[in-house]
């Protein structure tokens, strides 16, 4: 697995506990529209992602991230 694939797999794993509706996750899955997460869910999820990858995802960055694929890309940049 490439580094990005690993990051993607880990991200999907972190989404699972918050995926209450059992939405099938792809790179194109949108957090707000498809997963229907509210701000508190986002906070908890982001905290888990930050802890897992030891990065900081500011609200400014979050505003630019709509899909799972965009989050993985952002994580790749942050880890670099």
């Amino acid at each position, binding site marked *: 697995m490439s580094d990005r694939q690993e990051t993607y797999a880990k991200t999907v794993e972190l989404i699972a506990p918050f995926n209450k509706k059992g939405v099938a996750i792809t790179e194109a899955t949108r957090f707000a529209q498809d997963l229907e997460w509210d701000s*508190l869910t986002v*906070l908890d999820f982001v*905290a888990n992602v*930050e*802890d897992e990858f*030891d990065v*900081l995802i*500011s*609200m400014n960055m979050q505003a630019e991230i709509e899909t799972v694929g965009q989050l993985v890309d952002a994580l790749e940049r942050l880890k670099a």
Partner: protein
Amino acid sequence: MSDLFSKFDPVIQQRDELLGAGYTDPFSLVMEKVESPTVAICNGKRTILLGTYNYMGMTFDPDVVAAGKQALDDFGSGTTGSRVLNGTYVGHKAVEQALMDFYAMDHAMVFSTGYQANLGVISTIAGKEDYIVLDIDSHASIYDGCALGNAQIVPFRHNDVEALEKRLKRIPEGAGKLVVLEGVYSMLGDVAPLKEMVRISKENGAMVLVDEAHSMGFIGEHGRGVAEAQGVMDDVDFIIGTFSKSVGTVGGFCVSNHPKFEILRLVCRPYVFTASLPPSVVATAATSIRKLMNSADKRAHLWENSKRLHAGLRQLGFTLGTDTPQSAIIAVIMPDLEKGAAMWEALLNEGLYVNLARPPATPANMTLLRCSLCALHTEDQVGEILGMFAAAGRATGCIS
């Protein structure tokens, strides 16, 4: 043409449903007459006020009212100008001096509202390369201060010391850091663990701003707030406060010991580009602040009121926002908005006004009946309030 107002349709619909169900609109109450800090006439009915943030009951203090009247006579109804142009009178300097004396701090800067104080200070001191780390449950004025500025915004879980520390440690080396906290969080009335949070912030090289809007005048030996009560005043860089709660009028401020603090008067846009407070307002504020310095007895009585209401409501079977009374705010958690509106209306019919708080202003989408006590609520009134909660709670099925 697309209607710019269509984005408000969900709110309009929610409101229509609530009013359609026959409930009184909880957001358009009119007070016809205000008799005292604790009693008003609403819909022709004598109503006990339990949702005003008038913690120390200064709004009708004879000295405070007299100072305002005198200032109206001496200086007129308004300044019609910015603090940095024609809007600074001796009264504005006097209220800033009163704040410096109250907090024992070197600098004080008065804004036209508390909202503007947060907006101005936060947006101005944290710039593009800086980081603001803030509690997720922060007040709207703090978020708006963040939105007005250009800093990176990093929220952490409410009152979670470890979450704050982790985020501070991940901020890139050399970046400026501002940690924004509140002494008392106004929705649930809970207090922040400032002692640990301020220590951790300092250990990680951050400046600390604490909003003490809901604790001024009441919490701490001198009424300086939660930072005083927890012994960390010296490590707090900026305290933000308001005149619209314990002080009993309107206005906001920031106090600080930072040696370069005064430059904010020239660079802080929400301070510069608005008219200053009217002379009567700053005169009432200064008089009130000086009286609050010597109000230990009132503080003690307010604590008694808070403890008694908290214990009484629990005994009746209501679910409260905190396990123990931590401030003068006691939040009663309602199962949903409809029940909340029904209970709010039933209380009003009993002759009691509380705040109905609902999402998105509330944490975790809760509907709250928020009670804020006053040092001038008598023992009898607290008893009356508990009786009204019992009757309204049973009538609406909130308690059995």
